[in-house]
């Protein structure tokens, strides 16, 4: 089996401790959470930190709690915890949709929401989910706390706004009434990274029109959400012909690359197909929420 290069290891006991350690050991130090992105890269020697700061004991960052109209999720919350949370399942079914297809159950026992977001793999699912839910990232550093939108959080493939001496601590999801969301992924096999995936969230106004719509795509090179399609849908009643057009716009917005998972035209097609599917499902769920 592959083996990582040598490093020093230290375990942080609190967030402040972790920040102090990051500060002390500088840019050659890396935080390890669940470790299921970083350790494989270290084993293949694609990552070679000199110091590894283990934040698995930061239980203070392992929580899912409702705070008024915000659901606050600690960065060290494991995928398995998110998947098992009835609160999340009820408020944000898209999270459950996505969690069900992230890696495999054993990996989900270790992997964390914070780790996934900070890894910022272009084929990573939770980044799309967070964008679609208009989530915010709470980052702490020597200068205190800052709160960023997901657009500001993500800087590109494998790049985020979290500086080397900062820590992503929390993800905040705004809770909206009469809303529904959904995620769907095409993968070559269970546990694989997405060929393409799409997520959508819809909030309905009292009159049944869509007062907010968000559409996100995974693994097709779309940085933010698909605003052209969102603009088209906003203020209208959910209906199939609009979703068809939204799918077309999503395909147009996508910039996939050809690889072993498929050629460009197929991935564009999936952006279209999956956008339509998640819009339908999100709308149905929003309608249910409205009735409920």
């Amino acid at each position, binding site marked *: *089996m592959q083996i990582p290069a040598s490093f020093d290891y230290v375990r942080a006991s609190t967030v402040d401790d972790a920040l102090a350690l990051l500060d002390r050991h500088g840019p050659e130090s890396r935080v390890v959470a669940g470790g299921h992105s970083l350790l494989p890269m270290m084993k293949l020697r694609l990552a070679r930190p000199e110091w590894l700061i283990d934040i698995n004991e930061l239980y203070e960052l392992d929580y899912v709690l409702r705070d008024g109209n915000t659901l606050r999720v600690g960065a060290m919350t494991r995928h*398995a915890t998110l998947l098992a949370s009835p609160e999340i399942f009820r408020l944000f079914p898209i999270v459950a949709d996505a969690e069900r297809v992230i890696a*495999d159950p054993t990996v989900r026992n270790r992997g964390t929401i914070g780790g996934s977001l900070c890894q910022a793999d272009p084929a990573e699912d939770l980044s799309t989910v967070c964008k679609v839910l208009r989530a915010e990232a709470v980052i702490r550093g020597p200068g205190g706390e800052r709160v960023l939108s997901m657009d500001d959080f993500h800087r590109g493939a494998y790049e985020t706004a979290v500086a080397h001496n900062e820590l992503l601590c929390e993800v905040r999801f705004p809770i909206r009434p009469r809303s529904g969301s959904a995620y769907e992924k095409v993968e070559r096999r269970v546990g694989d990274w997405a060929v393409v995936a799409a997520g959508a969230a819809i909030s309905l106004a009292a009159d049944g029109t869509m007062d907010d719509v968000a559409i996100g795509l995974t693994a097709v090179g779309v940085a933010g959400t698909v605003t052209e399609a969102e603009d088209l849908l906003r203020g209208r009643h959910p209906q199939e012909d609009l979703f068809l057009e939204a799918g077309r716009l999503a395909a147009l917005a996508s910039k996939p690359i050809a690889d072993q998972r498929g050629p460009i035209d197929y991935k564009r097609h999936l952006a279209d197909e999956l956008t339509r599917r998640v819009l339908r499902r999100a709308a149905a769920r929003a309608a249910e929420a409205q009735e409920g």
Partner: protein
Amino acid sequence: MQISMSINGTDITEEIEPRVLLVHFIRDQLRLTGTHWGCDTSNCGTCVVLMDGQPVKSCTVLAAMADGHSITTVEGLATGAVLDPVQQGFMEEHGLQCGFCTPGMMLTARALLDQNPHPDDGEIREAISGQMCRCTGYATIVRSVQWAAAHPAVPEELAENAGEEVTA
């Protein structure tokens, strides 16, 4: 660095290099070779052990990260001569052939049954979906876990046939 943990109920303290993977610590340092490894990329799941009762891939956990935690390996499944029902189920229903993925499969099954004593076949398949088997085609593994679910304690007459007691 020094680490301490509970392995199959026994507290141990050992000196390690920080980069040592939990799977190597268990196999090479503790000489508990029932835990296997089969890939470089955290996909195959032959290295699964229970960490605080949860299945984890021990190739993707540093031994240092297990400091202070409780680890169960296949060697800790049986109680003396009495097999865990999961172990008995794998023998009854032919849930293994070459035996290489078997320890990880059985540990995941044990964790599943602890949480969900009567899983349906789909739940069993989902639970083991991060672990690969090249021999069985999985159907008999599912049956083995169902056998264990139906026999929460191994009947005594079967326990006798379970082979010699193994001391860790």
